[in-house]
């Protein structure tokens, strides 16, 4: 499956050039851009790990791209997103957030149903990958092949 969180997930994965253009847009709006990553892709996992603080005083997209690349190199097999923060009164929130890396394989989510009173059902959603420990949840195809392990 393909996780479609983030603003541009229905488009083909963005090229670095396209990512850079979006960063430029954020900086023109006066937003601070931060890099975040996670291997827990539950739709209500709000707090992804921060790859450093949002870059408040940066005015050059190349600086953000350098952090994106560094984060990808350190965490090649997890989800990485860019998040743009707007401090303007009346907003003071995220204004744009999109994926800039996803694992090679996305095994998807298990939907648990528990029968409750009447015909009600309590639903529980969990990513199949979450059953493994942090740091081992998503592995690249090569790594899996090398270990003879299927995801």
């Amino acid at each position, binding site marked *: 499956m393909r996780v479609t969180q983030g603003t541009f997930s229905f*488009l083909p994965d963005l090229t670095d050039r396209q990512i850079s253009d979006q960063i430029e847009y954020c900086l023109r709006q006066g937003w601070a851009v931060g890099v975040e990553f996670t291997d827990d892709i539950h739709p209500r996992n709000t707090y992804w790990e921060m790859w450093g603080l949002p870059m408040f005083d940066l005015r050059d997209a190349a600086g953000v791209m350098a952090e994106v690349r560094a984060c990808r190199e350190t965490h090649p097999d997890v989800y990485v997103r860019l998040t743009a923060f707007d401090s303007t009164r*009346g907003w003071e929130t*995220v204004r744009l957030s999109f994926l800039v890396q996803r694992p090679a394989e996305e095994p998807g989510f298990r939907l648990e149903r528990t029968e409750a009173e009447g015909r009600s059902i309590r639903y529980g959603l969990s990513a199949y990958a979450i059953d493994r420990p942090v740091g081992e949840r998503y592995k690249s195809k090569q790594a899996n092949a090398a270990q003879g392990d299927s995801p």
Partner: protein
Amino acid sequence: MVFPEMEDIMGQMGNFTKIQDAKQRYKSGVIPYATMGYWEPDYQVKDTDILAMFRVTPQPGVDPIEAAAAVAGESSTATWTVVWTDRLTACEIYRAKAYRVDPVPNTGPGTATEAQYFAYIAYDIDLFEPGSIANLTASIIGNVFGFKAVKALRLEDMHIPIAYLKTFQGPATGIVVERERLDKFGRPLLGATTKPKLGLSGRNYGRVVYEALKGGLDFVKDDENINSQPFMHWRDRYLYCMEAVNRAQAATGEVKGHYLNVTAGTMEEMYERAEFAKQLGSVIIMIDLVIGYTAIQSMAKWARKNDMILHLHRAGNSTYSRQKSHGMNFRVICKWMRMAGVDHIHAGTVVGKLEGDPLMVKGFYDTLRSTDTKVNLQNGLFFPQEWASLNKVMPVASGGIHAGQMHQLLDYLGEDVVLQFGGGTIGHPMGIQAGATANRVALEAMVLARNEGRDIRNEGPEILRDAAKWCQPLRAALDTWGEITFNYTSTDTSDFTPTAVAV
């Protein structure tokens, strides 16, 4: 009411003086409203006053000033004749004051429309109960619209002072928190109304919901008249819809929602439905405008208390908001609904099948979304409005829109809007999922291009065609609806040309 003995003083506009001598003022009988104290051209508006602007079409022979004063009188303290009991009160304060009357451009002799006037009226804040839309409206639109001295009357705009705004909760959730909860930023949200709107069983209904959400929509919606009918009772609908929502969340990893309409015959039934929606884990419920202002405020309080987004379908509004001479402008409904506390409201598409002049729609959207609205006569905003940190309402654009208009929709409506493609999703030749995907791809491609600095208004069709090269559902959507437009003249249009001077 027009009395023959008053006709001699109704000749010329503006020829009225407030009677200062108390004995003469309170002599039993009938005197013009304009001399009773309801016309005060020198009145200094107070920061705490509530202001209203009416479009007045006086009856033949009625002076516009007297008509304006009559509106002020009948919407505040007056009755048709002098009453001595006024003198037991601080009546000078409680009287609403008409303080300005302007002829409406392009009306009157030499035009196709009979003479109309914009009447500005100030109301003291103590005329109104804090936190009650019902009380506010009982005065402002209560009796006065049937008043004989005016042939037609339309409430065009209001200014609500901060002091009064702060007595209202405002939107239960607001745009900012809605986006944070849904984890969706930087693009319009996408929705669709299940069709056919009546007749599906709960099980078949949920199928439409699942397909549309899995295909890429964020929300699906009950229609305004889906409540609890013989073909589908409400509990059945809720259960199947939540199965669809949860399945779609698992299929996409995104937060999804279905607006479960809780509209019912009594508040008790609405609360029961809302509680069940909450129990099932829905992020959003919906109500119809026809349930009434008090019921809307009650549901807004419930929604705030229960972490629920509250969608309002403006069912019924066109009965009084569409015609230009009589009723009320939709921008006033927008103001009241932001005060009453809804999170979503249908506010026009510009390009779709329903009424919506671009300038007017811009005014509605600004009223719902901005923190501080400036006077803009072209857009129908006659007063500035500081919103005193009341949350923003997400406008919803719904009715006859399709993927081929995505550049226009984003250009006219901006990104803080729910775009609802009902027929444009469910009527897709390749099925509902494909219809949803076409809309989502068109939307994301357009936002990406806009952010890249491209001129989407002109390059929009090309951007869509490029995306359609790799997205077959979008190609099919453009082939089916690409040329469909709804070009009818709007009835609710701006009175001011772009060269009008702001007050």
